């Protein structure tokens, strides 16, 4: 028995001997990108790098909510590339001196994938929930994750607010139609777990009539065989994930691979992989290939319509949403 334990311990500590000439980099990427990244993009990048530059590259990836990843990087996690769901997190990394380059100079101002906020309902959508206003109907039970811990929830709250708001006249006060809709929907929210994933766990257990979440999460759940229905509201927000290099953690020998990895995320191959897992590609050509997969949003809006990330965070979440929580 003792010998067995020792063997197990030794085995645990000696997994995968390192090869000296392999370049190692670490990628932190928002939770919902896990499957696309580990199953498709990283293996493809490894092949691509070996073929083109003749060197082995080993990318280890870690996935969690964007806020958690940001905190880990702030806490000293040796990460060279980050893909996060909120610009604010990248700004914070910049403020603390971890990022010194301008991530807005990457293509699409750093946006490497997109999605929209939709809602997931029970099979056949028995309550006929089609717009955000429908979620405000009395007796409707709504789930979304907590905007304090989940980037997706911040987008969800922006979506609800924006669906009601008049973009030419944003006051964020109690008379603002967006705030009215947000308060009405929030009254129906029964749970705000840590992450989008947990909302699905609770929904699976039978709680709630609708989850407000990313379209890619919803498509992924459907692909896993869940019999949910997806409602793409007529007016909803386009979300985006942005990539940045964490300059302070990049050693000279990693420099080249880091640059190539970021470039690779924009290639048709990587974009196709993202699209396969339910994200909306930023590459126009790949977008056309996957045209049929994504419902057209009649009135899409972006966080810029709400005054940009910084203002939207302050006005919609810290102010308007926070007030809806006090009862």
């Amino acid at each position, binding site marked *: 028995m003792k010998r067995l334990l020792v063997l197990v311990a030794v085995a645990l500590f000696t997994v995968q001997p390192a090869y000296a000439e392999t370049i190692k980099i670490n990628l932190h990427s928002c939770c919902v990108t896990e499957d696309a990244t580990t199953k498709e993009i990283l293996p493809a990048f490894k092949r691509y790098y070996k073929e083109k530059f003749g060197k082995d590259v080993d990318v280890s990836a870690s996935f969690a909510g964007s806020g958690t990843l940001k905190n880990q990087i702030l806490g000293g996690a040796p990460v060279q590339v980050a893909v996060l769901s909120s610009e604010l997190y990248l700004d914070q990394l910049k403020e603390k001196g971890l990022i010194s380059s301008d991530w807005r100079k990457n293509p699409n101002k750093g946006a490497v994938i997109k999605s929209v906020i939709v809602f997931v309902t029970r099979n056949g959508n028995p309550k006929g929930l089609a717009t955000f206003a429908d979620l405000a109907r009395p007796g409707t039970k709504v789930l979304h994750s907590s905007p*304090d*811990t989940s980037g997706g929830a911040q987008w969800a709250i922006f979506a609800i607010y924006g669906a009601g708001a008049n973009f030419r006249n944003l006051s964020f006060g109690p008379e603002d139609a967006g705030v009215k809709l947000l308060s009405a929907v929030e009254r129906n929210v029964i749970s705000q*777990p*840590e992450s989008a994933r947990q909302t699905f766990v609770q929904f699976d*257990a039978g*709680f709630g009539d609708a989850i407000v979440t990313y379209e890619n999460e919803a498509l992924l759940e459907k692909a896993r065989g869940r019999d949910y229905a997806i409602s793409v509201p007529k007016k909803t927000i386009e979300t985006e994930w942005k990539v940045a290099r964490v300059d302070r953690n990049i050693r000279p020998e990693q420099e080249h691979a880091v640059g190539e990895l970021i470039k690779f995320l924009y290639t048709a191959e990587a974009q196709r992989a993202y699209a396969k897992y339910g994200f909306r590609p930023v590459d126009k050509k790949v977008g056309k290939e996957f045209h049929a997969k994504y419902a057209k949003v009649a009135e899409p809006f972006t966080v810029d319509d709400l005054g940009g990330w910084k203002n939207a965070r302050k006005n919609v979440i810290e102010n308007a949403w926070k007030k809806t*929580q006090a*009862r």
Partner: protein
Amino acid sequence: MSRSLDMDSLVRGATFAAALGLFFLLILLPLASLNQYAVREGFAVFRDRLRSPDAIAALRLTGLVALAATAVNAVIGTAMAFLLVRHRFPGRKAINALVDIPLAIPTVVTGFALLLMYGPLGPVGKFLGERNIQLMFSFPGLLLGHVFVTFPFMVRAVGAVLESVPRSAEDAARTLGAKEWQVFAFVTIPAIREGIVAGTFLTFSRSLGEFGASIMVSGNLVGRTQTGPLYIFSRFNTGDVEGAAAIAILLALASFLILLLLQLVQSPTARRTA
């Protein structure tokens, strides 16, 4: 001869220093750094964070849940300890091992299991739902989670004392004509008092820090069903490290005081039995 004695004391001294040093490094230093963060922006900020209505609501809920969970486990945990120590029945060893399961499985799994059981799709949840009773995402759900997670403490604390208490006093009371309830209330309970005290204190302080099950079953609604640890996690994630550290310090301090009190309460009896 004297050389080996020197070696002995050297070894003893080294062990002592190593244990204390490691304890300092592994346990105390992380706690100290928490303190440093809490007051980094000055004491006024620290006080301001503690005064936030959401923080107060979270702390209040944490205290209430911990009290309730302790009360529930004080009764059923003690009963379980009696069952396991005093009775011999088939499957006793298996049940004895199962008692510690809440310590071994991830608390998130506990939360998930409760959701499945009490959710509209689970048998119990269906039954309750038809009667319009919703336990999850409210205080009762939270309580169920905490009772589950803290269950072993009471059983183990009472069980350990119960093992060492001879039954002769109880037999004597019976011989003297005491009724069963009198034996229990006036002989048995005082004899295992120490175990009950230790169990309740441990249960309470573990409950103060409960996170994994809470985040699944509470609904995490700010100001309503968000407990202290969930509040800390939220604050930390929004980048308000000072707010997170302020409440964390308070919970850590509360736990420390409870455990210190336990030491003080226990030491006289411990000395007496020695």
